[in-house]
């Protein structure tokens, strides 16, 4: 009887040890797959593209109805624009001259400030959002352009309002975009806050879903930051080009340690309505 109890205890210990080892192994594997710089395997690429193909077929009626509604809205907007253009037609010659002058000033400023590239010089690729944040915790989009359209990881994704994220992974016909509102702890972007005196640099880190504000941390000099100041990408780190607008300052406070400032930023892009996005490809 005692021997059976002893044997049972030993077996239980081995079972518990086995479960702990398996759990550690699984968490290790999951940590590797969660890594941001992991690219898709060939099997994953083919399976995802097949799934997206099926989804595109199923999505056709939704797109048709949505397209008709958008067409109607666009027609109304076009008519308004036509009226406006008719009014300013006479000023076209003057505008052309002004444009030539501005272009020349821009070239001078670029060489003065030693700017290598501007956002207007990037090749733009328009894409449609086909999936968004399935599973609720990842804050990613899937767009309908991939490697075949020249997209690669780390390309910037914007809307006509401002920055929304960057491409993390691509398949042949789709790409995954990680949004700047992701709660991912590894997602930090170097930004600049444009004040009256100069530009103050910090790190975009975190998004509060309740207040819908981004947080900028590690700002040492906050004396001149005020509500309403624009926040743009700083260009440091060579991932995001300089000058893409992210949002405006909504609050300035000290961090928990009282050493640096914590700036709350209201994003300028409407993350509630992301249907069509633009990817900034390579330099043209």
């Amino acid at each position, binding site marked *: 009887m005692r021997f059976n109890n002893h044997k049972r205890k030993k077996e239980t210990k081995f079972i518990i040890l086995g479960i702990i080892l398996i759990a550690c192994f699984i968490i290790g594997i*999951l*940590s590797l797959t969660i890594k941001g710089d992991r690219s898709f395997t060939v099997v994953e690429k083919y*399976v995802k593209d097949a799934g997206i193909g*099926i989804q595109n077929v199923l999505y056709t009626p939704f797109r048709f109805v949505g397209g008709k509604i958008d067409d109607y809205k666009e027609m109304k907007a076009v008519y308004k624009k036509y009226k406006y253009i008719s009014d300013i037609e006479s000023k076209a010659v003057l505008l052309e001259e002004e444009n030539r002058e501005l272009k020349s000033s821009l070239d001078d400023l670029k060489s003065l400030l030693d700017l290598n590239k501007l956002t207007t010089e990037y090749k733009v690729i328009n894409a449609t959002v086909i999936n968004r*944040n*399935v*599973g*609720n*915790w990842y804050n990613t989009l899937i767009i309908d352009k991939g490697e075949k359209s020249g997209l690669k990881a780390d390309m910037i994704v914007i809307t006509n309002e401002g920055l929304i994220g960057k491409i993390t992974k691509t398949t042949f016909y789709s790409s995954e975009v990680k949004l700047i509102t992701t709660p991912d702890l*590894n997602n930090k972007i170097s930004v600049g806050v444009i004040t009256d005196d100069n530009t103050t640099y910090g790190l975009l880190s975190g998004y509060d879903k309740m207040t819908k504000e981004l947080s900028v941390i590690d700002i040492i000099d906050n004396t001149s930051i005020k509500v309403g100041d624009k926040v743009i990408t700083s260009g440091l780190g060579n991932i995001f080009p300089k000058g893409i607008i992210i949002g405006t300052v909504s609050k300035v406070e000290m961090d928990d340690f009282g050493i640096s400032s914590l700036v709350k930023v209201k994003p300028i892009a409407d993350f509630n309505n992301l249907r069509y996005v633009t990817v900034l490809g390579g330099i043209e």
Partner: protein
Amino acid sequence: MYLVVLLSFFLDGLLSIYQELSIFGVIYFKPMFTIVSLVLIYPKYQKDINNYLKICLVLGLCYDLFYTNMLFLNMLVFPLLGYIIHRVYLFLIDGLVNSLAINLIALVSYNFIIYFVLFLTGYLSFNVSLFLYNLLSILITNTIYFIILYLLLMTDKNNFPKKKKYKF
């Protein structure tokens, strides 16, 4: 039943782009129809639990391949969820309210497990209020879907074979 699962699976992706639609800025549309379908199809497999867990495994793998980048996460979580659903069903009789309760348990369990794993692997920080805030929207959205599907499927009695007795 396979149709219910497939439909829910693809609807998760299709309707996910409307996730930011909200009521009063508090309740968001957050579909997790795949999980709901697992709860709905269980009564058909209550005598064949092995097959049910195999379906959960395959569904989890497809979910990982199509929607997330985390290989094996849902492939492991879905069968675990299937087992939880199996154990909870043993204690409850059939009916809309009880099935709804199991649906809520399944959704809470799934989200808790996923959130915990993402926290352990350093993907997310631990934030109880964010978790609960998201959970509220998830529960409301998927409860409505569950009720609609349950009422539709109830018309066919073969889909929901009555339990002869319940165990404690």
